[in-house]
């Protein structure tokens, strides 16, 4: 279970690019961390690493819930606003999981019963200043 440290936003994006190289073409990755931890920043790096879009084109999907990049090769989901698993269930996540796509999910850990057992979890913690600690866990 490798743990990384980054000191700036640019380093977090660069780490995302490196992580992208290790992710399967089809899979689910949870981005876990508090408000402002840097989940969307890391997503920018992963999307860039998968050559699906430029980092500046990857914005927060909080309002829109699902963003797709690279013709649907990467989906960026954000469940921040949803509280009830029944509502999340109707979002059609299962369809996304079946696609030949890498599905990045923010705030997904709040609905474990809706997620595949086989997944990557990336835990991001804000330290002092702009430093971040990023831990990558492969499940199961």
């Amino acid at each position, binding site marked *: 279970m490798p743990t990384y440290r980054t000191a700036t936003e640019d380093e977090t994006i660069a780490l995302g690019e490196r992580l992208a190289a290790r992710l399967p073409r089809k899979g689910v990755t949870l981005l876990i961390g*508090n*408000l*402002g931890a840097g989940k*969307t*920043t890391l997503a920018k790096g992963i999307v860039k690493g998968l050559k699906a879009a430029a*980092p*500046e084109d990857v*914005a*927060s999907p*909080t*309002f*829109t*819930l*699902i*963003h*797709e990049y690279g013709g649907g090769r990467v989906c960026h989901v954000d469940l*921040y*606003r*949803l*509280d*009830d698993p029944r*509502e999340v269930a*109707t*979002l059609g996540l299962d369809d996304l999981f079946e696609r030949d796509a890498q599905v990045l999910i923010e705030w997904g850990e709040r609905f474990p019963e809706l997620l595949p057992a086989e997944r990557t979890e990336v835990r991001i913690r*804000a330290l002092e200043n702009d430093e971040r600690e990023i831990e990558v866990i492969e499940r199961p």
Partner: protein
Amino acid sequence: MKVVRILGIESSCDETAAAVVENAEVVLSSVVASQMTTHGKYGGVVPELASREHLRAIVPVVREALGLAGARLEDLAAIAVTTGPGLVGSLLVGMTYAKSLSFASGVPLIAVNHIEGHIHSVILEARRAGTEVAFPALALVVSGGHTHLFEVREGFEYRLLGKTRDDAAGEAFDKVAKLLGFSYPGGPVIDFLAPYGDPNAVRFTFARMKGNASDFSFSGLKTAVLRWVEARGMESEIAARRALRRGPSPPTAEEWLAATPRATLDLLASFQHAVIRELLTRAVAAAERMGARALIVSGGVACNTGLRAAAASAGLPYPVFFPSPGFSTDNAAMIAAAAFPKLERNQFARLDIAADAGLTLA
């Protein structure tokens, strides 16, 4: 002058809306069935609820819009419908209904981009008031899902000048409101409370960004507010507001004010001030670079009274246009208005056009 009427249908997000607009100028009817009360309970837009609510509302809303306008379907020049961006499930409700109306009546269909609609909201109202928007204009479209700067040229050609790299401005309002225990949407409550605080009490600074100088960023500001709150142990007042929110009826503005201590009012005032400064500074600089002859502000955040006041007192060398509050938020008159130039160019949509969740304007 020949009377040309277009029916507009909008269902991309919160609202199910229909409107009839005549000659790109007169709004004969504009009906909006808001789902805000349904969503408020969940703290946001819930897609399944959204599409179900759209489905329930679409037929009566369109019927009412036609009835209020005294318009018959067969007499319309076109049916305009939002095809994106938005939630696919929600878009499909409006699109499917618009297509069936078009198929049944033979009235042609026009596809409209939701963001272009927001820009036309302002252009329509300005025209009606006899103060036409001069081009090229700079359009700032700012809402919960969008923060974009467009150059708008004669003939409605668009060029994207900048956009948010992370959170939309309206999303920053919503997230700050939520973390402080207020209800959704966050914009109106923060806008109401901000004048009671000192906008210079908390100094928020924006990190300088590399690359496009017209891009926005609100994520750092959101995080700064979170750090400020964490450092001050505000749990009890936040819990009190959450309890207020869960009460039997939605809290009034005065109840929110009573539940918000001075230091928090200062925080809200400073936060709103920082958002406004970020929006206006970048918009004004972009307007200057492109030689804009007008500034258009639209989208839900255009309702913000602090933003309106700041724009009015900025002493800009070109007029600034805001939509009236009912035209800031999502409505269908803007969709019909945006369709008139397309009608002139015979730019009709086929009945098999698909919804595009990520549709871009330029």
